[in-house]
């Protein structure tokens, strides 16, 4: 009985300890946000890497998702004569849920992995130690610019993804479902409220923070060798993806529960 409890307790304690380490890491990073020195070049490089270069993959995801969503809503709505709601549901679905979540997941796959691999490689090749000996705080130089860039650029990616997703729905609506173009767009605009879009952008900021945090945390704690970097990369993507989905539920509960 005691050994069974111990077997159960050990992974729980390990999980709690891991959560504690991530929280301490995040707090340390946040504490550096407002304290100089600030590394502007590293921040701009991270904006390009996380934001600009993620745009194609987010756009592709959004356009196909918007199109598929329009087809599904049309097919489902057809059962009870509600085909006309396609523009409204595509818009609300993209802005509130699919835009931020799929955008966040795509950025997690692309960015969390690259951050973890880059920082992990820097760690195993002693580049992090070299930073310290060159009087540069690795947390300030590597983590803070990436956290800030991801938190600021993922909402922009989400906004772009929302627009492209709605366009995907519109394209399918007018070419495959016989919707009138102007009516489709008018219904979309009339139905959407500011908070539908705003809540998605807030989610995007939170997801961006999660992505960069997981990439940096696992990279900084990478074990030695190629296997260690590989494991850190995998852990960064998996943990970022799961945390994004969990955070999405919590935020939806906070924003939209009656």
């Amino acid at each position, binding site marked *: 009985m005691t050994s069974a409890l111990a077997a159960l307790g050990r992974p729980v304690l390990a999980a709690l300890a891991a959560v504690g380490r991530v929280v301490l890491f995040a707090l340390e990073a946040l504490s550096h946000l407002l304290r100089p020195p600030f590394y502007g070049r590293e921040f701009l490089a991270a904006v390009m890497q996380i934001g600009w270069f993620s745009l194609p993959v987010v756009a592709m995801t959004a356009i196909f998702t918007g199109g598929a969503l329009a087809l599904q809503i049309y097919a489902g709505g057809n059962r009870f004569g509600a085909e006309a709601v396609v523009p409204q549901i595509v818009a609300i679905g993209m802005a509130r849920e699919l835009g931020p979540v799929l955008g966040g997941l795509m950025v997690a796959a692309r960015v969390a992995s690259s951050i973890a691999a880059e920082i992990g490689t820097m760690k195993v090749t002693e*580049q992090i130690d*070299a930073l310290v*000996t*060159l*009087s*540069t705080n690795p947390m300030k130089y590597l983590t803070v610019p990436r956290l800030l860039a991801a938190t600021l650029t993922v909402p922009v990616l989400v906004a772009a993804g929302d627009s492209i997703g709605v366009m995907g729905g519109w394209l399918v609506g007018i070419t495959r479902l016989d919707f009138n173009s102007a009516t489709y767009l008018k219904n979309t605009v009339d139905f959407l409220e500011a908070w539908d879009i705003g809540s998605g952008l807030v989610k995007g900021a939170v997801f961006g923070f999660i992505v960069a945090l997981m990439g940096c945390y696992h990279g900084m704690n990478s074990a030695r060798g190629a296997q260690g970097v590989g494991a850190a990369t995998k852990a960064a993507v998996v943990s970022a993806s799961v945390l994004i989905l969990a955070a999405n539920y919590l935020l939806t509960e906070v924003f939209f529960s009656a």
Partner: protein
Amino acid sequence: MIELSGVHKAFGANRVLQGVDLTIPRGESMVIIGGSGTGKSVLLKCILGLVTPDSGKITLDGQDVTTTDRDAFLARFGMLFQGGALFDSLKVWENVAFRLLRGALKRPREEAREIAVEKLRRVGLKPETADLFPGELSGGMQKRVGLARAIAAEPEIIFFDEPTTGLDPIMSGVINDLIHEIVTEMGATAMTITHDMTSVRAIATRVAMLHGGVVRWTGPVAEMDATPDPYVQQFIHGRAEGPIPSVR
């Protein structure tokens, strides 16, 4: 002067340092020798604060390194890492001038670049190398760039971690000569970790041998060959038989 007294460090059950006592006088070139896994790099990282000792005291000019101002302390050091540890995403000159482009020693970019090119020239690299990325360089050139970075801010103390590992004998000789010249002309205090005996004879003024987590022998390099210490004799002559087990 750097002084270590009773420095202990363990990683789990592996007790790497078990009471290291060592003094590195100002202006001396101390070389630490010892087999692989004897804690030479850990010792060096303890001094720099990259690894925290479990117990013991490390002082620099009488000041405890754990209580001194960190930035001011590190500004006195330069370090050449075993693998170079050059930043892949930065050009060679940006690597060399890293310290001069940010922080307390920040200079205008053009001035920092000029200093970097001059330091590259000092280690035998042409100005054209400055705009390459580290991935475009050979192992020997990377070591030279690492050396240029270590001396860029004119530090008082320079650490060299296995400076000739992975290099052919000729390039090793070039690096050894460069280290000797630079340390001498800068009047710097140097600490080198190596198990390359050619490096020891080329670089050292004093030698310390680390074995079993403690300093087994220390003395001037000129006395190293004559010491009766069986551990030192086995190590410097590379014998399989002796008190140091050959299978570790």
